[in-house]
């Protein structure tokens, strides 16, 4: 396993008590594997990524659990060591490519700088490497594009540059937070293909955070569904999509619009996800759940085997 997360808990202390943004999150990602992390806004997907990179906005902090990268614990590393690890071992791709790049430097210079920060290469070697990275991510005419500024690129091309930057030091783990959300569908498909190729060819572990189940269906092998700061279901993508086990996942899959030849109503889950200061006891989904029974209100379910997946739902507990 490249990444292992065990019982991760993230809290935000506030004047009115502590908010638990992540509660007991555990998962792992193997080499060449793409793990999709899906959920609605506020479910804790991005916080999970940020906690792994130790880039949580203060006062947010990890209060329990462990994060290991290639078998080595990284959640307790000193800040300076963690800083060296980011970029070198962990690459990151954010949604908004425009803010991930410095508008004042050419993309070539930014790539070179990143490469030379992490790897002991000469100026020329760094330049050669930067050019080959640009070619690898599919930038046409990389030689001329090298001296262009970020604003001279289209959104899709800029996102490719950001991916090249993330790959600069050959990281073992790639965290992609909504990498295709700001892009048009036709460009999305290109970026998805690129991410898949990167995982396959470089043997990197990819954590793909997105709210778009369609993107996950095509990119990931496994998927974790998050709700109220917990993973409520995790399993192979086909299983979770075609045979969801948690009632929330069932509702979520039904509410995704699909291409259909006729006008029709969608399945809808009533209500909305609870706020962090009002997560109900027991299962956080229980107020919206059509199958709720006594145990759901009093006792919190952990992930338990449900078919080929695992789900945090008492419906699947052996009676």
């Amino acid at each position, binding site marked *: 396993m490249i990444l292992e997360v065990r019982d991760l808990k993230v809290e935000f202390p506030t004047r009115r008590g502590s908010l638990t943004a992540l509660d007991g999150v555990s998962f792992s990602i193997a080499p060449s594997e793409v793990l999709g992390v899906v959920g609605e806004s506020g479910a804790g997907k991005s916080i999970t990524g940020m906690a792994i990179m130790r880039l949580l906005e203060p006062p947010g902090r990890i209060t329990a659990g462990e994060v290991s990268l290639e078998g080595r614990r990284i959640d307790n590393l000193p800040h300076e060591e963690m800083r060296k690890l980011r970029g070198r071992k962990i690459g990151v791709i954010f949604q908004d490519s425009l803010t991930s790049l410095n508008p004042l430097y050419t993309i070539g210079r930014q790539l070179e700088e990143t490469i030379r920060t992490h790897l002991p290469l000469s100026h020329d070697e760094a330049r050669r490497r930067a050019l080959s990275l640009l070619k690898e991510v599919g930038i046409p005419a990389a030689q001329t594009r090298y001296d262009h500024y970020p604003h001279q690129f289209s959104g899709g091309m800029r996102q490719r540059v950001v991916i090249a930057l993330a790959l600069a030091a050959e990281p073992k783990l790639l965290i992609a937070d909504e990498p295709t959300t700001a892009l048009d569908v*036709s460009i999305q498909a290109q970026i998805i293909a690129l991410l898949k190729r990167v995982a396959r060819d470089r043997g990197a572990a990819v954590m793909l955070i997105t709210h778009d189940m369609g993107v996950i269906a*095509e990119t990931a092998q496994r998927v974790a569904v998050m709700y109220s700061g917990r993973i409520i279901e995790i399993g192979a993508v086909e299983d979770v999509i075609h045979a969801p086990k948690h009632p929330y996942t069932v509702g979520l899959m039904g509410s995704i619009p699909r291409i259909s030849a006729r006008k029709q109503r*969608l399945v809808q889950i009533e209500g909305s996800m609870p706020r962090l200061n009002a997560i109900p006891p027991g299962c956080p989904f229980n107020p919206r759940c059509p199958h709720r029974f006594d145990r759901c209100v009093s006792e919190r379910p952990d992930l338990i085997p449900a078919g080929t997946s695992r789900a945090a739902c008492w419906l699947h507990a052996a009676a």
Partner: protein
Amino acid sequence: MPLLELDAVSRDFDVSRPWLNRVIEREPRRYLRAVDRVSFSVERGETLALVGESGCGKSTVARLIVGLYHPTEGRVAFAGRRMQMIFQDPYASLNPRWRVRDIVAEPIRFLGTSQNVDQLLRQVGLSPEDGEKYPHEFSGGQRQRISIARALAGEPDFLVCDEPTSALDVSVQAQILNLMLDLQARLGLTYLFISHNLAVVSQVADRVGVMYAGRIVELARSAELFSRPRHPYTRMLLDAVPDLSKAGRARIAVAGEVPNPLSLPPGCAFNPRCPYANERCRAETPALDDGVACHAVHEKRI
């Protein structure tokens, strides 16, 4: 007579450089044609959707219809009572300093309609007590419900919805789309629905217009368009939609990008990305004929 009719509507934007630069560098004025001779009509009670990628001109069409822009050429004719617009961002379209009651009541006061705020709130799935709250106390989906209640307060028969669910989570999106379908059935509303999301459009629209580089390239009944797309661009868009049933399988990545509207290729704007393009496509702009603007389709090559 259709409720709304657009007849060869175009809209240019002046993107010239400043006067001094033009004089010194002897540059002419430059115009960007955001919408190019778009014609369609919307019948009472139906939902017409416009789909396309960013920059294709779909939002400009919406703004031309509600009168936020004036057409450079062509004519917009509206035979209904009143139209209202629902915007994408429910965070930006509600005044944060006003109570919900006042937001919803404003069109009633201004237009003198006989609507009742409590009833409007109930109609969109909120409770009358929510009227005393401020917009920040609501989630994105609830805010969009408030926007819809406000739009309905003016008793419109035509609603222009510009990406009404794009800022929302999927489960909330489903709630809002269902609400819109229910309201249409109950109040006999007519919608113009603008979206980049083909799957959403397929669930709500009766007819669909596909836009590319400021023009409508295909206009057909929803059932036909999604089962038998004709224009190569429509086919490409449909292929590019992530498909849940295809888990693990690769989709064909589409090459190329939308052209720069300042320097559109001659002929059909889609020709550089089109696998069926020939000499005629590179020289002559195809007209929308029989629901599709494509030489290859007209010549029965595809």
